[in-house]
């Protein structure tokens, strides 16, 4: 039974933090960036709090295989990798505070962070709240979400045993999803709008050899067909504009991410795609507010780059606090 490989001991969250205190640093988001920042903040002796709205680990926990994080030559699942990050952070005094960040304000060098579990006061902030998957751009998405439209292949693949599913997207995530789904589904169709996949070559090679996976390139989704659940997808050829309906039972969406910046609306400078702009020290347009990980404007979004961002952000926050005291 493969499930028994994984008796996960996720670090339990808590609310023991005393919110009357003023923290040196509030780290918002417990993905790879936030957890790494916590390791550095803990070792630097800062009085810090780590806030997370869901269970920790960030988006990478949805990946059942991570092959490009150095130090794991056999590869490792996203969940297991994040469990290790957590254990290491916890060794240096990190405890996760459960709460959803709703608003951030700054006055007189003090940040006030409104969360679903109370207001946190902190002298500096590392914003590492990551991103959410981009929704499938068809008018029926909301109606069929959870009824055949899924954003988590690891979670939901089992519901599509011996069925036909479609993965929308052409990047690494899409191909990892397709490979995972091919262990359950009868057929997996990868739908991508360009004439070439975007994923790294090694993944493309594995996918092309998999007899259960079929590529449908230069097509975009138009409409979901179905009554109570997904029964088909109307797709359009981007060149000929011809459309057709493919009969499928599930649609797994991996077309990119939307940065989670709502609590910072109107406060920090964003790039044209909505990601937070920072300098080389990870500092945003607001002094004392740093950004790290997927939420930041950066050319590459990986666990390794998020971890790097987190380390730099924690180091910079420490320097910022030292200057503040002068």
């Amino acid at each position, binding site marked *: 039974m493969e*499930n028994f490989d*994984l008796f*996960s001991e*996720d670090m339990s969250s808590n609310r023991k933090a005393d919110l009357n205190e003023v923290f040196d640093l509030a780290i918002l988001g417990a993905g790879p960036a936030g957890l790494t920042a916590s390791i550095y903040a803990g070792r630097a002796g800062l009085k810090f709090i780590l806030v997370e709205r869901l*269970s920790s680990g960030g988006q990478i926990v*949805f990946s059942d295989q991570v092959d490009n994080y150095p130090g794991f030559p056999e590869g490792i699942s996203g969940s297991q990798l994040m469990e290790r990050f957590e254990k290491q952070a916890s060794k240096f005094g990190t405890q996760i505070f459960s709460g959803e960040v709703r608003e951030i304000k700054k006055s007189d060098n003090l940040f006030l962070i409104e969360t679903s579990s109370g207001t946190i006061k902190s002298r500096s902030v590392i914003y590492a709240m990551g991103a959410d998957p981009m929704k499938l751009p068809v008018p029926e998405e909301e109606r069929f979400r959870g*009824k055949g439209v899924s954003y988590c292949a690891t*979670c*939901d693949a089992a519901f599509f045993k011996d069925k036909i599913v479609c993965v929308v997207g052409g990047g690494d995530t899409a191909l990892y999803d397709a490979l995972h789904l091919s262990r359950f589904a009868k057929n997996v169709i990868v739908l991508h709008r360009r004439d070439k996949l975007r994923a790294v070559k090694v993944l493309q090679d594995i996918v092309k050899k998999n007899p259960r996976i079929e590529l449908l390139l230069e097509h975009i989704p138009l409409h979901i067909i179905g009554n*109570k659940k997904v029964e088909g997808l109307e797709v359009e050829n981007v060149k000929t504009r011809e459309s057709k309906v493919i009969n499928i039972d599930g649609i797994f969406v991996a077309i990119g991410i939307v940065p989670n910046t709502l609590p910072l609306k109107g406060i920090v400078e964003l790039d044209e795609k909505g990601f937070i702009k920072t300098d080389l020290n990870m500092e945003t347009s607001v002094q004392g507010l740093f950004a790290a990980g997927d939420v930041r404007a950066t050319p590459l979004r990986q666990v390794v780059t998020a971890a790097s961002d987190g380390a730099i952000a924690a180091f910079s926050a420490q320097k910022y606090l030292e200057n503040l005291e002068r």
Partner: protein
Amino acid sequence: MEKLLKAKDEEYVRNLFEQNLVEPVELVLFLESPGASRVTEHNKQYLAYTEEILTEVSNLSDKINLTIYKDDKEKEKEYGVENISAFFIEGKNTNKNIVYYGIPSGHEFSSLLEDIIDVSKGETQLPDKLKEMVRKISTNVNILVFVTPTCPHCPQAVRTAHQFALENKLIRSSMIEAQEFPEWSNKYNVYAVPKVVINDKMQFEGAVPEDTFLNSVYEALGIKLLF
């Protein structure tokens, strides 16, 4: 059967229990023999493993006791057992209302550990404001949380539902391992997890913050909260 928990994991759990358990906790497990009506091709392979994992966990602390009822129709009725396997985490503040249908493996193993600790302490970690709102509910609420063991955010939904149950005896919250109960899952159109069903009326998918979850509970009762 070979042990399911590795020595290192046992050590971790034993320490966790030693540091956190206060009052005794009773695990009450319901099973049926092969060939019984509720043993299907989908759940039969898991029954022995569920028994084994609960046995191993209960052996890691003197404060945890495991009782197993097999083919005991009367006890099943007393607990309101709807499917097999089912188990209940019982303590002084519970009301046969913290329920698991199917195996707590994968990510759900952490739900099991945290639930045991909460029940033993007799209190949850919900913010005070929310506790108050949960305790105010004065009618029966039945919450089903469908999960798969490989779903990273499912424990959040299970834990929230179980904490509500620990705060209010009128709330009965059940984790359901969707793959073991395909008919049950089909009844509620479960194709993505976590999926939460409240009083057969209100449904939503995905992990949400506790206050949003509670809003949905109230909504199922016909009350629109403003907070």
